[in-house]
């Protein structure tokens, strides 16, 4: 056996390495070692990001093609590890708190495992590996959600999460079993694509697709598979919520794209086009409608992220390289914007324990910089220029309309109209911080250094990701290199 092929699995190996290191330090070092645990992880993740980005790939496929590492997946992994880095930085203060002190190693290890799972999920080109990745990305999260041992909400969130997660796994597996029936005996994506093209349409395939969509929809929290989202986000520790809202969503979205476009692209108009329309419209609209009446910031962000997921999946509908690029770009921007917002939420929660939107009233008086960062994050999420969110939104709309289909055009119309509602509730936060005349409820405080770094990076990202186009170009080239033919490109 040629072990050199595992060189292609560099990202996973790195994560594994970090995992081992954290484990060893956590197990064998004393208090001093435990202190540097989080910073170490953060720095290592950052290095990993750079490594994934610059170290040339030592091969394309591993395990007979079950695992593929190409530029697009590596780019996606980079995005995820940036997000991971930011989350770890943000979690630092919470992790260092007294309640958590003894278990911070576990926290980081679990996080790293999920990251590993996500990497696998992204790179998987075979459903077996995909399921393994998916499960290892989602099961540890249940433990993480339950991490706040002394808080009942944390447990409730965890049980809701795990039950729904298992249910969705069951549905997904059921769907996959039907897919298997159509696959000609192979669960490779390419083989399935081939047999789906040749095969006849049948009701069973529709059920299979609907179930697969539901299973993935759970991870992405698409309506109506999203109902766990708000409860879990609310109950989970804030850092975990942040993690859930961006990373697992990002990985799932990428997988969603690969599976539906690469595997089932041939039955797009026959089978899943209208399903996707229904799901996207429902996701954006229901997410918005729920978000506008939330008072708890974490719940608010939960529904906001539901609605954002709808926009992310919009990229799938383009079904071409442009769509994938825009989707990845959207995820990247979403990572910084959402984590920016979560940074503020979690720092305020850590310092004062306040989490309701009304607690933010008059925040600008006591914490102008936090309000400023939060404002930018909200603007970015709402898609307002010159912040990154605007570009990601517009680029995804542009990609979706690239196919020239009238139905998609109208879908974009629905999405655009929904941006108005979303603007409304994002502005509510801004209003609370800046306009509300109430006396400030949150006293002035200084955030920890890690939080500052994380927040500053997020703000930089929010301001510059859109204005600086090389990021998009980089993603685009990555996608183009990975899918030279498979995904027809409209422009050139």
């Amino acid at each position, binding site marked *: 056996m040629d072990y050199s092929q595992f060189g292609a699995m560099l990202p996973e190996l790195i994560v594994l390495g970090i995992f081992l290191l954290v484990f060893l330090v956590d197990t064998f070092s004393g208090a001093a070692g435990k202190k540097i645990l989080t910073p170490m992880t953060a720095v290592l993740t950052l290095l990993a990001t750079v490594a994934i980005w610059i170290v040339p790939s030592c091969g394309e496929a591993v395990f007979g093609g079950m695992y593929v590492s190409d530029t697009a997946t590596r780019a996606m992994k980079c995005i995820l590890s940036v997000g991971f880095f930011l989350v770890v930085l943000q979690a630092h203060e919470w992790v260092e708190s007294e309640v958590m002190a003894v278990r911070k190693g576990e926290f980081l290890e679990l996080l790293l495992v999920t990251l590993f799972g996500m990497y696998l999920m992204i790179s998987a080109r075979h459903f077996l590996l995909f*399921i393994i990745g998916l499960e290892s990305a989602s099961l540890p999260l249940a433990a993480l959600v339950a991490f706040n041992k002394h808080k009942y909400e944390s447990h409730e969130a*965890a*049980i809701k999460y795990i039950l729904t997660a298992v249910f969705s*796994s069951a549905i997904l597996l059921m769907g996959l*079993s039907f897919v*298997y029936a159509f696959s000609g*005996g192979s669960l490779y994506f390419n083989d399935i694509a081939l047999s789906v093209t040749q095969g006849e349409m049948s009701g069973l395939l529709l059920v299979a697709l609907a179930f697969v969509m539901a299973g993935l929809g759970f991870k992405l929290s698409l309506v109506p598979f999203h109902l766990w989202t708000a*409860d879990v986000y609310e109950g989970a520790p804030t850092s975990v919520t942040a993690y859930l809202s961006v990373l697992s969503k990002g990985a799932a979205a990428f997988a969603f794209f690969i599976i539906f476009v690469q595997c089932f692209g041939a039955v797009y108009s026959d089978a899943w086009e209208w399903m996707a329309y229904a799901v996207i419209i429902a996701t954006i609209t229901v997410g918005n409608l729920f978000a506008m009446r939330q008072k708890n910031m974490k719940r608010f962000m939960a529904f906001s992220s539901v609605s954002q997921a709808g926009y992310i999946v919009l990229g799938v509908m383009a079904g071409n390289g442009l769509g994938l690029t825009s989707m990845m770009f959207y995820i990247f921007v979403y990572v910084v914007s959402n984590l920016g917002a979560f940074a503020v939420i979690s720092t305020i929660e850590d310092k004062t324990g306040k989490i309701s939107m009304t607690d933010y009233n008059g925040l600008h008086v006591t914490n102008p910089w936090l309000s400023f960062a939060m404002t930018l994050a909200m603007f970015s999420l709402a898609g307002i220029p010159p912040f990154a969110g605007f570009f990601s939104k517009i680029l995804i709309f542009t990609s979706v309309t690239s196919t020239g289909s009238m139905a998609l055009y109208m879908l974009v119309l629905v999405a655009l109209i929904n941006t108005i509602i979303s603007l409304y509730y994002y502005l509510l936060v801004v209003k609370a911080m800046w306009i509300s005349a109430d006396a400030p409820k949150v006293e002035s405080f200084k955030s920890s250094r890690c939080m500052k770094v994380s927040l500053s990076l997020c703000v930089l990202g929010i301001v510059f990701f859109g204005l600086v186009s090389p990021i998009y170009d980089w993603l685009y080239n990555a996608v183009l290199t990975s899918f030279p033919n498979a995904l027809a490109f409209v422009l050139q």
Partner: protein
Amino acid sequence: MDLSILWYLVPSVIMFVCGVYGFITRKNMVAILISLELMLNSADLNFVIFNRFLFPGSMEGMVFTLFAIAIAAAETALAIAIIINIYRSIGSTEVTETNKLKH
């Protein structure tokens, strides 16, 4: 007697539906976990059936099933742990008790 594939599939689907039904109706979380197990097993069963009937030459379905069983076990373990936690904090494993987070 040559049994058609349906003889196997139908029970599997019934099992699945039972699982769903059980999840929805049972109040005890452990019972819900059992229902989930039913659903997972039905999916596993499907894989095996399809492998055996449609693609007897290969083993992919079987292998998949093995992995799925392992994953199901992990899931159950985790769920049980969380249920125990819940029991500790509210003294009950009724699913109806755990609906503080809503709307």
